[in-house]
C-alpha cells in the first residue's frame, strides 16, 4: 500500500519532524507522510541534520562516578545528623518483652486442667494414652479346648484344640476286647481284622 501523498500546504510541525529524525515516531501513516514530505523538501532534512549535530556538540557529557560521589559528600556535609533517642529503643524492647510474657501466660492458663472456659471454643479431643487401652489377650490353640463341636467346618474356629484333629485312627486287631454277648449286636474282634461293633439287621 502506497503512503498517502502529502498535500501542497501540509508540513510537519517541528516536534513531529524531530521525533521522526530521532526514530521515535510510532505512527506508520505519519511517518510515511513525513518521508514523502522530506522527498519534496530535502533542505528541511539537511537543516534538521545540522540542528541535531549542533545539539550533539553542545550537550554536556554525563558526570563521572567520582563527580557524583563528590556531590553526595557535599550534600551530607550540609544535612543535619539524626537525633539519637536511646530511650525509644529501650521502650520498644520492654514492650516486646511484656507482650511475649502476656501471650505465654494466656496460653498456659488456657491449657490448665479444670480451667473454666470463658469462651465457648471446642477443645480438641485429647488423645488417650497408650496405657489407657485395654490390650485384648488372644488365646493360643493350647489355651482353648473345645469339648464339643457340631458339624464338619472346623476351620470356622480360629483358636482351640478339637477333640479330633486329624484322621481317625482305628484300633488294630487285638487292641480291643469286647465283653458283650448281646443277641442283637455283631462284634468283630478276631485276628487280622480291625475291631468293630454293629447292630444286627433284622
Amino acid at each position, binding site marked *: 500500500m502506497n503512503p498517502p501523498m502529502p498535500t501542497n500546504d501540509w508540513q510537519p510541525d517541528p516536534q513531529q519532524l524531530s521525533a521522526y529524525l530521532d526514530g521515535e515516531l510510532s505512527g506508520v501513516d505519519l511517518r510515511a507522510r513525513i518521508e514523502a514530505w522530506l522527498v519534496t523538501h530535502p533542505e528541511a532534512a539537511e537543516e534538521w541534520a545540522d540542528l541535531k549535530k549542533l545539539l550533539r556538540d553542545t550537550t554536556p557529557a554525563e558526570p563521572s562516578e567520582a563527580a557524583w560521589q563528590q556531590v553526595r559528600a557535599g550534600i551530607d556535609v550540609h544535612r543535619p545528623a539524626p537525633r539519637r533517642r536511646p530511650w525509644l529503643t529501650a521502650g520498644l524492647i520492654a514492650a516486646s518483652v511484656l507482650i511475649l510474657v502476656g501471650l505465654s501466660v494466656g496460653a498456659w492458663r488456657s491449657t490448665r486442667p479444670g480451667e473454666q472456659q470463658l469462651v465457648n471454643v471446642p477443645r480438641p479431643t485429647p488423645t488417650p494414652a497408650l496405657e489407657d487401652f485395654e490390650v485384648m489377650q488372644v488365646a493360643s490353640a493350647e489355651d482353648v479346648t473345645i*469339648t464339643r463341636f457340631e458339624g464338619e467346618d472346623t476351620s470356622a474356629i480360629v483358636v482351640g484344640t478339637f*477333640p*479330633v484333629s486329624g*484322621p*481317625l485312627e*482305628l*484300633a488294630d486287631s487285638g487292641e480291643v476286647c469286647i465283653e458283650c454277648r448281646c443277641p442283637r449286636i455283631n*462284634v468283630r474282634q478276631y485276628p487280622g481284622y480291625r475291631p*468293630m461293633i454293629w*447292630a444286627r439287621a433284622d
Partner: protein
Amino acid sequence: MLIRTTSLLLLFTSLAGAVCAGDCWDEKDPVKVTLVVILASEEGNHVDKRLKAVATEIQKLHPHLKSFSIKSQEQRSLKPNEKVSLMCAEKRKVDMVINHGADKDNRVSLKIKPPQMSELEYQSVCGKFLPIVTPCKTAKGETIILAIRVEPCRAP
C-alpha cells in the same frame, strides 16, 4: 536322729516324685473320652478325609454306605464309675461309664449304651477309635455311626 530321718524321708519323697513325674498312673485317674458321631449315607460319594480309614473298614461290612461325614465330636473327662450321657444325633444319647483307667496292660475299661442297642462293655487301648454302627437313622435316612476313643495312654 530326728533330723536324719526327716532328711531321708524327704529324699525318698523327692526321688519318688521325680521318677513318677509323668510316668506314674492310677486306674482311678480320670479318662478322657472322645465321641465322634458319623453320618453315613447311601447317596453320593463324599468321604470326609478324616474318615477314610473308618469308611474303608465299614464299607467292608456295609458296602451300600457311600458317603461319610462327621456330625459332631465331643470330648469329656470322666472319673471311674462316673456315668455320663453324651448327645448323639436328633435327641438320641449315648450313655457311658468308665470302669477303670489304664491298667497295667494300658487298657481302659468302659461300658457304653448306644441308642437302640444293648449295653456293652469292652476294654480298649488308648488313643485309637472303635467304630460302632448303630441301627439308628436320621430323618434323612443317614446311618448313625459312633467312634469312641479313650485317653491318656501310658508311656511305653
